[in-house]
């Protein structure tokens, strides 16, 4: 079974600082891959390399077997790569419904040309994430948790094959986190692969099929959650060296 998404030896430098250092991994269809690591490990940069927002200094990105390293961001969206942003970016002047409708209008395959149809699809996505009641509100009137769900809904409206989630659980309480986990599982059940960046270890442990750990831009572990979290290097990365 060919990997849906493959990253080969991706490196990204920012005038002297190496944000992502020779990272390689694959994402299979229908898989939930968790991406963890301390702050500044390069997780968001890696996601940006996949979504096309940034270009790698070295390395390749492949989607469905085809190299997409030079493909611009909007075309990757049309191929089926969707992402949410850690620093949330709703379209503030538009309603919640219309925010999501943009995704439906421009998503996979170029999206839906008719506005009315796009709004219908948007409504369905809002219901899916639990924002159905807020459809006619202005996007900037939503609170933090609402905005996280809006980000998800926007990405889902694009009908992606891969969903890149950047810290959709940050700042949420236990109940809200459980709800987001449920939504992500529903997303996977639809056949969409998900790459989830998260800091809430407990949540990502139960959610992910596999875990990938980044530290100082390098991949330091890749495997089943229970094993990865026992890994000494990973523990050290988060907690620092033990004083002997």
């Amino acid at each position, binding site marked *: 079974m060919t990997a849906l998404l493959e990253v080969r030896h991706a490196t990204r430098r920012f005038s002297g600082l190496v944000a992502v250092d020779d990272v390689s991994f694959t994402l299979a269809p229908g898989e939930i891959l968790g991406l963890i690591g301390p702050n500044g490990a390069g997780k968001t940069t890696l996601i940006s390399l996949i979504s*096309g927002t940034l270009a790698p200094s070295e390395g390749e990105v492949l989607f469905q077997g085809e190299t997409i390293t030079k493909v611009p961001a909007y075309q990757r*969206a049309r191929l089926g790569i969707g992402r949410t942003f850690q620093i949330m970016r709703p379209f503030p*002047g538009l309603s919640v419904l219309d925010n999501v409708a943009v995704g439906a209008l*421009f998503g996979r395959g*170029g999206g839906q040309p008719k*506005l009315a149809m796009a709004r219908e699809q948007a409504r369905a996505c809002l219901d899916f994430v639990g924002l159905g009641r807020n459809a006619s509100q202005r996007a900037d009137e939503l609170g933090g948790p609402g905005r996280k769900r809006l980000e998800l809904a926007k990405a889902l409206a694009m009908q992606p094959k891969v969903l890149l989630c950047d810290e959709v659980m940050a700042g949420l309480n236990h109940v809200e986190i459980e709800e987001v986990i449920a939504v992500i599982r529903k997303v996977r059940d639809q056949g969409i692969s998900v790459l989830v960046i998260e800091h809430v270890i407990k949540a990502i442990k139960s959610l992910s099929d596999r875990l990938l750990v980044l530290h100082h831009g390098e991949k330091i572990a890749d495997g089943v959650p229970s094993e990865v979290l026992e890994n000494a290097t990973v523990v050290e990365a988060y907690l620092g060296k033990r004083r002997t």
Partner: protein
Amino acid sequence: MKALRPALIVVAVALLAALPWFGSDTLIQFGINTLLLAVLAQGWNIIGGYTGYASFGNSVFYGLGSYGVAIAMVQWHLPFAVGLVFGVGLGIVFACSLGVAVLRLKGHYFAIATLALAEVMTAIVSNVKLAGQNVGLVLPPLNNDRLFYELALGLLVLATLTIFWLTRSRFGFGLIAIRENEEGAAVMGVNTTLYKVLAFTLAGIFSALAGGIHAYWITFLDPESAFDISLNVKMIIMAVFGGPGTVLGPIVGAFSLSAVSEILSSEVTSIAGLFFGVVIVAAIVLMPRGLADIVRNVPKSGWRYFRQNIRAHRL
């Protein structure tokens, strides 16, 4: 109530169209100027209001449209309509060739680049023989103000219908997405470069058409007046005063500001310009989102609306 609105608009357009038969000559001339300014404001609305790229270069399209008509009619003896098409063609070439480079810039850098473009074009055209260089060109006269009035009105209706279409089309949504959050739009599948150039070109086409009509109407043009940079600011002020990113805002802005300016000019000549300046300053402080926003919010919030604007933007 909602069904009443289109009916009101149709009535307003009909009244405007009938004006040349009831108004004095000065009124008709004022009408032509105002209608053309409204077209320019609407054109700017497409690139500045909806796409969020505040262009200070629409005067270039206006000038190209003017010169297109002038050169076609004076040098090649072609009819007016062909001249208009030529002018639009020049505008499209300009938008597509320089637009891509300039639209890569963000925010005020884009504004300044378009301003620089405008300055450069003025200087270049002053040196082109075909365009009559510094002296300019004189067009064959056509003494039919009513015709020009109706042409201008028709163009305004066309521009406004285009914007109305924008608000309900995939293209328009893409533009708004670019305005609200360009990177977010790209990641959702919007071809931002293509859309920006299209918006810029569309705005340019309307500006060029307005320039062409204006040139034939006043029968004379030279580089200074055709590529008049102050036109840029006028159209922006009118669009912003009326409400950028709305369908009717720029029209309201153009009509109201022109009317005020005209009244003041006839009453106290030199104060008119001064008043304009004061109005702009006051408007930016009190109503930065334009009249359209006032109409939307003041019924709800009353005077608090203005205080809220200040509070949101002060240091």
